[in-house]
């Protein structure tokens, strides 16, 4: 009882609480409520209104009359439309049939076998993410085109057309499918495998009855993702499509080349359908999948199996080799004087200021846009996730925000870009001044890539103790102060992941921003498109290579810096000594 006296005295005269008093205190505690409305307004401007503008463009004629049925009839009656639709479907289904099994094999090798050098294979497989979707098209031209090394491979028509698009899209979509399937195969309950072995099931039967059903959702998700990416991409068809036009390219041409906005909007709306459909099915399936992995599951560790490992190594080598071949063709062609006739090394194709397409300005703009997108996007995405996951508020508002954060996943870049054109380029819009500016490009990118970042942030935030904010509130500390002092430092790894993802995505994107740049804000990936259009294929390859290098380097630098930074600031993560 010796310590009792001073404490009792202190208790009698309250020591006061943190956070100041009066108006400042009320503002600090009320901030999250206001921020939610701000985020809702942001979603409206960056997502909902542009989409509505797209619908408006497609549904109404210039006088404001309902014109959807007539336009649909007109589109369907066009003798080109049904073949266009058929070609888009044929290409995307073929790519999905090619990529999903290969990506599954690759993911299986990385997650469920004992193949050596896994980080290396994973790095190679993810390389296409660092390049714009135009790079595989250009590389295919160098490999199989009229002057390509393997020019006879695809018969008289050459690579231009169906097979060119399929191979280019396969390269472009492979890492996307791989990431989905790796996530699906990362969760395995060892108890199921032990049970199968105890009951005498053969490895093949175990694969069919345990592994495949467990990855069913991932397989479906990967197939949907590939279909959506292929249907809405116009980069690859533009470069190697030749006389094989597809829907996405048609929408792009309608708006950029022919100023047929209504037609572009209508096709854009059609392209939104498969994405929305797969998104809905995916959400429904995730709800069912959740219960399958119980918290008592044991982590599965692959055992020794020479046959399986040899087969896996074969898959990894074949796929990795093919991906590297495509990359090497683009990089190689950019470094020689005239492929394939004069193989003397040169940097002449990197002299962008003497080419059409924007020159080095485009590259600087891209760097600036990627950095701004990463900065603004990380802040917006993390705070948005924090508002919905960690603060209290009306359920309907949180629901609306969450739905808004998930929606970008279902909106292809092409569709979003078209929506931005119709919304921000409308002369009556007070935000019209933003059109063509860097601000709008950044806004569009943040909206385009929002969902992936949001899912990362929300997952990290949900792992925190559920009572952090309540404990801080009881101590009189405002939520935003706790967010800054505790939540952000604890979630730093997730924040850095989001930053990296946004930077690389903004560096390589073409689909949405192609409708929004001005001569002052031309971008590197767009200059690839323009230089290829102008026949400067080697320079297009050079710029693609530069983008690839920049993204990969930025990624490595950020990873390295993050590791060092985390080591210095996150001493608390170290285990107890």
């Amino acid at each position, binding site marked *: *009882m010796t*310590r*009792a006296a*001073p*404490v*009792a005295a*202190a*208790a009698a*005269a*309250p*020591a*006061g*609480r*943190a*956070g*100041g008093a009066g108006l400042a*205190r009320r503002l600090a*505690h009320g901030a999250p409520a206001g921020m939610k409305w701000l985020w809702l307004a942001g979603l409206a401007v960056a997502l909902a209104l542009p989409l509505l503008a797209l619908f408006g463009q497609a549904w109404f004629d210039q006088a404001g009359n309902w014109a959807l049925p007539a336009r649909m009839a007109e589109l369907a009656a066009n003798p080109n439309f049904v073949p266009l639709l058929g070609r888009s479907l044929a290409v995307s289904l073929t790519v999905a049939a090619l990529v999903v099994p290969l990506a599954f094999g690759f993911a299986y090798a990385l997650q469920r076998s004992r193949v050596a050098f896994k980080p290396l294979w994973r790095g190679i497989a993810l390389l296409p993410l660092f390049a714009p979707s135009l790079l595989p098209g250009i590389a295919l031209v160098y490999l199989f085109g009229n002057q390509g090394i393997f020019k006879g491979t695809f018969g008289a028509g050459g690579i231009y057309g169906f097979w060119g698009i399929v191979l280019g899209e396969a390269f472009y979509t492979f890492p996307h499918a791989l990431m989905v399937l790796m996530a699906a195969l990362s969760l395995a309950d060892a108890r199921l495998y032990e049970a199968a072995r105890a009951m005498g099931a053969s490895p093949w039967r175990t694969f069919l009855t345990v592994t495949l059903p467990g990855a069913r959702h991932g397989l479906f998700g990967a197939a949907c993702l590939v279909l959506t990416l292929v249907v809405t991409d116009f980069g690859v068809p533009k470069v190697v499509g030749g006389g094989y036009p597809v829907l996405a390219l048609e929408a792009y041409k309608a708006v950029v080349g022919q100023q047929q906005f209504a037609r572009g909007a209508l096709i854009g709306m059609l392209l939104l359908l498969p994405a929305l459909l797969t998104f809905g099915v995916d959400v429904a399936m995730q709800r069912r999948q959740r219960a399958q992995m119980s918290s008592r599951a044991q982590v599965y560790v692959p055992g020794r199996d020479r046959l399986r490992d040899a087969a896996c190594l074969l898959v990894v080598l074949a796929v990795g080799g093919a991906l590297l071949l495509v990359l090497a063709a683009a990089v190689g062609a950019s470094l020689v004087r005239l492929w394939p006739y004069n193989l003397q090394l040169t940097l002449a194709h990197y002299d962008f200021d003497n080419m059409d397409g924007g020159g080095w300005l485009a590259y600087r703009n891209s760097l600036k846009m990627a950095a701004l997108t990463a900065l603004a996007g990380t802040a917006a995405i993390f705070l948005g996730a924090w508002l919905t996951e960690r603060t*209290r508020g009306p359920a309907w508002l949180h629901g609306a925000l969450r739905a808004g954060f998930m929606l970008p996943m279902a909106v292809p870049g092409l569709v979003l870009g078209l929506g931005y054109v119709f919304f921000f380029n409308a002369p009556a819009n007070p935000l019209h001044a933003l059109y063509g500016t860097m601000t709008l490009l950044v806004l569009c990118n943040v909206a385009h890539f929002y969902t992936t970042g949001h899912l990362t942030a929300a997952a990290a935030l949900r792992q925190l*103790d*559920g*009572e*952090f904010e*309540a*404990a*801080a*509130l*009881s*101590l*009189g*500390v*405002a939520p935003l102060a706790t967010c800054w*002092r*505790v939540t952000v*430092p*604890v979630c730093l790894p997730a924040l850095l992941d989001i930053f990296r993802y946004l930077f690389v995505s903004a560096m390589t994107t073409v689909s949405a921003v192609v409708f929004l740049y001005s001569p002052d804000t031309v971008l590197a990936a767009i200059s690839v498109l323009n230089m290829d259009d102008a026949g400067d294929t080697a320079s297009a390859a050079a710029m693609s290579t530069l983008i690839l290098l920049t993204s990969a380097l930025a990624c490595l630098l950020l990873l390295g810096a993050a590791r060092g930074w985390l080591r210095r600031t*996150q*001493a*608390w*993560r*170290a*285990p*107890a*000594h």
Partner: protein
Amino acid sequence: MQAGESAPGRAFLAVEQVSKRFGGAGGFQALDGVSLSVAQGELLCLLGPSGCGKTTLLRIIAGLEREDAGRIHAGGRELTGLPPQSRDYGILFQSYALFPNLTVSQNVAYGLPGRGMGRVHRDARVREMLALVGLDGSERKFPGQLSGGQQQRVALARALAPAPSLLLLDEPMSALDARVREHLRLELRQLQRRLNVTTVMVTHDQDEAMAMADRIAVMDGGRIAQSGTPGEIYERPASAFVAEFIGQANWLAGRRSGRDTFRVGEVELAVSPACAGAAPEHATRLCCRPEAVRLQPAEGEPNRLLARIVDETYLGSRYRLMLAADRLPGITLFADVLREQRHLLPAPGSHKFWVALPSQALQVFA
């Protein structure tokens, strides 16, 4: 101070007719017109099975949930509708909710103003609080480097540092292993008494409630089934639910056969007039604690039965006997006997002896 002493005096915290329903009209009634009051310096324990509404009530007092109806006062101030930061309480969560990236002293200082001159006072207060919970010397450690019991003390020091007038404890012991729990239970109680801070604790553990509380409010289905000192709750449970929830009991099905008598099987049992009078006319259940069963009673005692030991369980300081009485077929009676008196009784088997269910120990419920 003595254990179990209730602190009389005016109520510090008053909860009046608080109701809460989750999930709209078809939802779940978590609280149904709950009223209670806690005196200055008293430790009130909200006890009940999961889903009884105890945690919801605590969160409503803390301002973390909004009540649908009712009022809350504390220290002469109306708290109804106030946000958590304006309520002046400290809270200790089941998970402790310590900030993992802040050191022990940063955690404790989290709620203290620290600009300018405040800094000196703050540092002094942190040292004082850490000394109070016996953690001096751990200032620079991170929560992840502490044991569960130490983490709990840091969380307690953090909650008490701003000198709140009310302390809320949400299942404070449930994350600890059994041995640490008993020890910390005592420490927490001593600290609470020393600071004389009004405290509301939520628990589902009846032993914890008995050991720590001045008063216990047993909750069931969103209502308070009974509130009183641990002794009152145990010895005079107000309902069958309370009697069943607290401690062990023998339950006998029967019906009233006279003013103060009940018929159970072939036996007529006498019940104390006070208890029988208070019980409803159609009461059907009698209850008797195992330690109240009289073994080898004197000749003249009421409610005597001839029984034999069927089986027994060794509980350290005592044995729990399972008895079969001739005239109560199909019923196993539980009775406790101290270890040093066990030898006075026969071994399990057919050997019979007298037991009695004392009339003043029999409770009657509907």
